[in-house]
């Protein structure tokens, strides 16, 4: 494209944009518009959450106690850390530090994977305690002497756990997509593709990553911290 134009084009500028700035602004705006669709996507779930919590307050409080606050809280910290490293990676790209990008992206990926590993153990515990909705829904606890003690949960708790699995499951799916995205960005950063003039991919992947963090910021208190009467 550059050959027939009077002013020099950056090699990454696509033919239909007037300038790199227009291109960056368009991609940031595009990502935000996309994130709005994500907000609405999760919004449907939150709507279901609100309606059923209004219908079954007791079930919500008691089912919430079956979730592991340590794991949920720990994961919140992990995600906040990953948001910091992500923001630092974008900054590294903006100032042109290849090393900074690589280190921070690797940290982000590791933190994201940590989140998923914790999630795995959390889900595993739910299966063991019969808290998975469906024909086998049968809440119980494993006592120290090896016997099973059934837990009595009020009507509506099966819906709570359905929502718990769907909300956290879809969130985890977004994490997986995010990690895959970060691997691609890492490979590109490794090749030194980004610098002060061109860092759109890092920036918009970063927006996505932070969004996934924000979803968790809401999921954590709404799912894990209900009822107000627990103690650590």
């Amino acid at each position, binding site marked *: 494209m550059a050959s027939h134009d009077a002013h020099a084009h950056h090699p990454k500028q696509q033919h239909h944009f007037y300038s790199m700035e227009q291109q960056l602004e368009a991609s940031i705006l595009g990502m935000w518009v996309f994130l709005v*669709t994500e907000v609405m996507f999760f919004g449907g779930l939150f709507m*279901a959450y609100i309606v059923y919590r209004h219908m079954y307050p007791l079930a919500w409080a008691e089912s919430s106690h079956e979730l592991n606050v340590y794991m949920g809280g720990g994961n919140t910290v992990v995600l906040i850390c990953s948001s910091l490293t992500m923001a630092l990676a974008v900054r590294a790209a903006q100032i042109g530090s290849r090393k900074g990008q690589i280190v921070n992206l690797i940290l982000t990926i590791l933190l994201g994977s940590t989140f998923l590993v914790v999630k795995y153990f959390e889900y595993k515990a739910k299966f063991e305690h019969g808290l998975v909705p469906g024909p086998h829904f049968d809440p119980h606890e494993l006592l120290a002497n090896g016997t099973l003690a059934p837990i009595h949960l009020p009507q509506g708790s099966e819906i709570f756990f359905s929502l718990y699995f*769907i909300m956290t499951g879809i969130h985890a799916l977004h994490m997986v997509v995010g990690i895959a995205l970060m691997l691609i960005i890492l490979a590109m950063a490794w090749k030194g593709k980004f610098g002060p003039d061109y860092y759109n991919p890092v920036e918009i992947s970063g927006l996505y990553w932070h969004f996934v963090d924000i979803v968790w910021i809401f999921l954590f208190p709404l799912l894990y911290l209900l009822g107000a009467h627990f103690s650590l």
Partner: protein
Amino acid sequence: MVMSETIKEARHSYLDAPYGLKSWLLTRDHKRIAMLYLISITIFFMLGGLFAAGIRLELLTPKGDIWSADLYNKMFSMHGVIMVFFFLVPSIPATLGNFFVPIMIGTKDLAFPRINLLSWYLYVIGGVIALIVLAMGGIDTGWTFYTPYSSFASNTNVTLAIVGVFVAGFSSILTGFNFIVTVHRMRAPGMTWFRLPLFVWAQYATSLVMILGTPVVAITLTLVAAERTLHLGIFDPKIGGDPVLFQHLFWFYSHPAVYIMILPGMGVISELVAAMSRKQIFGYGFVAASSLAIAILGFLVWGHHLFVSSQSIYAGMVFSIITMLVAVPSAVKTFNWAATMYKGAVSWESPTFWVVGFMGLFLIGGLTGLYLAAMGMDIALHDTYFVVAHFHYIMVGGAIMAFMGGLHFWWPKMTGRMYNEGLAKAAAVLVFVGFNFTFFPQFILGYLGMPRRYYAYPDEFQVWNVLSSAGASVLGIGYMLVFTYMMYSLFRGEPAPANPWGAKGLEWTTSSPPPTFNFDEDPIVTEPAYDYKPAGSEVIVG
């Protein structure tokens, strides 16, 4: 001489740039993607039409005699799913919108050409999934997928169908988001917001609905699929779930989706009325604002589908009154179109026929919405053939008439060829007459009480059903006629001049068909849209 020049020009067009299938399937040119969409939605339109024919055939007689009840249920379900998700939603935005939004605002392409192509591929994947569902026997839930029927009672491939709709929905989100960014960031110098052609305004409003509504139906249908496959019950009444919640979430998208279908149609009509009357659109600001008003109000009215669903009566009243408000911007548009023709220079070429047909049908479609919005009246009409007639007047009488009008208007620009004027006028008349005979009797059937989705019905309803089926055959012939002469035009049509209608607008300043990057020189806009000057003979036809 003129002829050979046009042909020489055509060599530089987007159609011919590099030949070959691969250059089409990997294209990032919005015009080629629009043509790919046009081909694919035509296939689905025919498929959906086939099911419609099956439905009308069965309803000729009161007894269920041609198909089995099960097959009939699958036919209307697949008719709905295909027509709504695979034809109407992408119809105008993905074809005419894709083709003309960038040209009308004077840019080379949409902001994200690769995502545009991705959107077409997602549509195709969703479509192929729908075809697989069809091959496996179809679904019998209706296009509305109401739980608990869709989650527990139906033993058809509901989950796979949901996957198909989900993927197609993603394609629609990508189209919408591409348009929004394009309109905001890619306008040519001088193309201010209030110089935008009204078609672009309408597409912009439509895109808002697409990105704000589609994700909600995506998650809702995902929840139904999760209920079917993973037993994660959200709407299951057996564990205390509320099926009405599904309806709330479903209509949060699906009511605005009606505006995804009709708003672009309104945009097309605004263009056509101005161009065919060679006159500035009457009340430009009001027409543009009413598009946005419809898009926004459209999100506040979904509960009018739930008046008799055991929704709270007070919620019903809120939804009812807001629904009544939607009538106002729709009325404003209609009156403005009529006023535009006043003292115009109204052409009697074929696009005008479609426009006038649209106005008649859209009026009836829009006004009959008032019956359904008045809560008490809705008790009698809810889920009857009145509803069927009403939304077909909007979606077929409104959206498809407008789509046809737009297609006739812009066909010379898109393909570089003219079609047979006489046949085009005949087709417009056939479709108009056939349509009214098909759907007007259904209003009466509705007030008589015939419920929708009935395979067999009491004898006294037969006379109106026969009339409806007879009209449907005329309607079908009308559409086939359009298909025939358009196909003929594609291969044998006369080469089209750059501006066959003598219309204003950036799309008419470039050649027919346009070059790959739309304009030989980046346009700079200096005048408002529809700037027809009455004094001199500034309009140059051809």
